[in-house]
């Protein structure tokens, strides 16, 4: 089954997966998956456990070999690494401090000392870890450790980020915070991201495009193009803007109230719309044989001016 994500790509193809099949003895983990991922796309792969999504990512990351077909990431610009992986669960080295963990990728590619220092300090700052730089992982919470993992991947400054259910081991609250922070970080430099998750909710929150996979054998079911405009984030940031502005806005309480109300309202609307959309998507997943993504609800497309395009793959 070939899924053409977009018939007329505007940006260069960064990742090409072509008739990829992976077999572990008799088990077909990935069955003939083809997909092109454009540069700068936040690409999520959703599916139940055992659908081969992690295998797919490990193949992209060079940690597994292919049985047939190919999976290639375009060559990086000189001096930049091709990709970094953010793993599921604890993957930061317990024997290194937060600082040394964040510096690991740069050290492995023998970056100059000064460059390592600048990058590590920058990304520790961005991930809110500066205060914890000298601590060892056992002194941090699970959420903090996953931040270190994110800092380590971003500090390496790769062209592609491969993320394997990075937040699945976290509690609800931490997951939401880290999702928002990941988006915030991603917005600034728009790396190509491949994000594995089993949560439709998470995929819709984060991704531009979502590939839905089915289990045993792992097949690509659908690719959904989500031109979301990330209204959720917009609402979120105007809300936080309102909160930040709170102490300074003594002069204009009326203005403040307006911004605040607007933010809450827009957040609420987007939430409701998202929820409706997610429900339909989940229903189609449950239906299993359904060969495509749901069309977005009529009022959704109209009221939020969000465009959701679905391109359908056909089973062989």
């Amino acid at each position: 089954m070939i899924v053409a994500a977009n018939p007329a790509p505007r940006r260069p193809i960064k990742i090409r997966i072509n008739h990829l099949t992976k077999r572990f003895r008799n088990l077909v983990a990935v069955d003939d998956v083809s997909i092109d991922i454009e540069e700068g796309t936040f690409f999520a792969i959703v599916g139940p456990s055992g659908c081969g999504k992690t295998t797919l990512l490990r193949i992209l990351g060079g940690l597994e070999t292919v049985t047939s077909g190919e999976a290639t990431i375009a060559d990086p610009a000189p001096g930049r690494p091709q990709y970094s992986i953010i793993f599921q669960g604890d993957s930061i080295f317990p024997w290194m401090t937060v600082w040394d963990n964040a510096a690991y990728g740069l050290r492995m590619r023998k970056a100059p000392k000064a460059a390592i220092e600048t990058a590590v300090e920058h990304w520790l700052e961005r991930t809110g870890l500066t205060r914890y730089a000298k601590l060892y992982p056992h002194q941090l919470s699970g959420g903090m450790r996953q931040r270190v993992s994110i800092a380590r991947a971003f500090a390496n400054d790769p062209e592609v980020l491969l993320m394997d259910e990075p937040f699945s081991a976290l509690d609800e609250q931490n997951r939401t915070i880290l999702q928002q922070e990941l988006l915030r970080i991603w917005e600034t430099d728009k790396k190509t991201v491949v994000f594995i998750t089993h949560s439709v909710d998470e995929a819709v929150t984060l991704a531009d495009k979502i590939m839905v996979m089915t289990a045993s054998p792992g097949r690509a079911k659908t690719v959904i193009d989500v031109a979301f405009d990330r209204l959720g984030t917009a609402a979120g940031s105007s809300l936080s803007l309102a909160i930040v502005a709170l102490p300074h806005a003594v002069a204009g309480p009326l203005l403040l109230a307006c911004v605040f109300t607007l933010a809450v309202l827009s957040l609420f609307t987007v939430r409701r719309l998202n929820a409706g959309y997610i429900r339909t998507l989940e229903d189609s997943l449950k239906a299993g044989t359904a060969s495509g993504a749901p069309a977005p609800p009529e009022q959704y497309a109209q009221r939020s001016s969000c465009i959701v395009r679905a391109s359908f793959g056909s089973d062989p």
Partner: protein
Amino acid sequence: MTAPDSAISKAKSSAPETELIDIGEQARLSARRRERIMSFASPLGLLLIWEIAGRLDSVDVRFFPVPSGIIGMMSEMLMSGELIEHVLISLQRILLGFLLGGIPAILIGITMGISRPVRALVEPLIIATYPIPKSAILPFILLIFGLGEMSKVVMVAIGVFFPIAINATAGVLQIPPIYLDVGRSFKASRWDTFRTIALPGALPFIMTGIKLGAGLALILIAVAEMVGAKSGLGYMIWSAWETFAVAKMYVGLFTIALIGFGISMLLREVERVVIRWKADA
């Protein structure tokens, strides 16, 4: 009526509270102090009984010279520099043996942990040679290396090699595979993988191997020096036996015990520093 009332409540709220804390603290402190005193008391008590029994002629002082006599002999040997000389030469052999056996043990042990082919090649050799009593190969070592320094150093090296190598392999094998994946995903070279993942990950196990090796090293250095040396603590004990200088023999035994204690204290400190990243360290 209110005044005494408040006085009572004050007394209740402040004084007993602090006192209670004090009592708990003191109880714990005194318990710890008592334990420390007890741990000193048992060996000191034994020495005291020994001394008294010796003076009363209840034990044969030819075999069990009184502790005060041993201490006298010890200070005499310290003054003359004889004891220091033997201690230093023994320590030097132990140290060199540790380096000669320990460094290859760490390298080979970790390589065995990383690489399955190397493990398949080397592991049978280690399994086959490990059970041979190290003291039993002393004649063979003397044959090869002669009576010089090398034979003693090699004995220690062989002794420390096995526990360190075996523990290093086990240490690498228990490293969660995800850390090796991380190394590969960041394109760590073979040497970097060794240096930044396998070695630090296996270090807690390697430290256990080193501690086991230290005990073996003391046994082996004493045996090796008794048979094929003209210096060192083992030689000193052996020659004391030959000349029936029993007090001197005890000085040797006591010194070896002291060195063993010192080494394990030192290693415990080293361990605390090198694996401070462990949650329970």
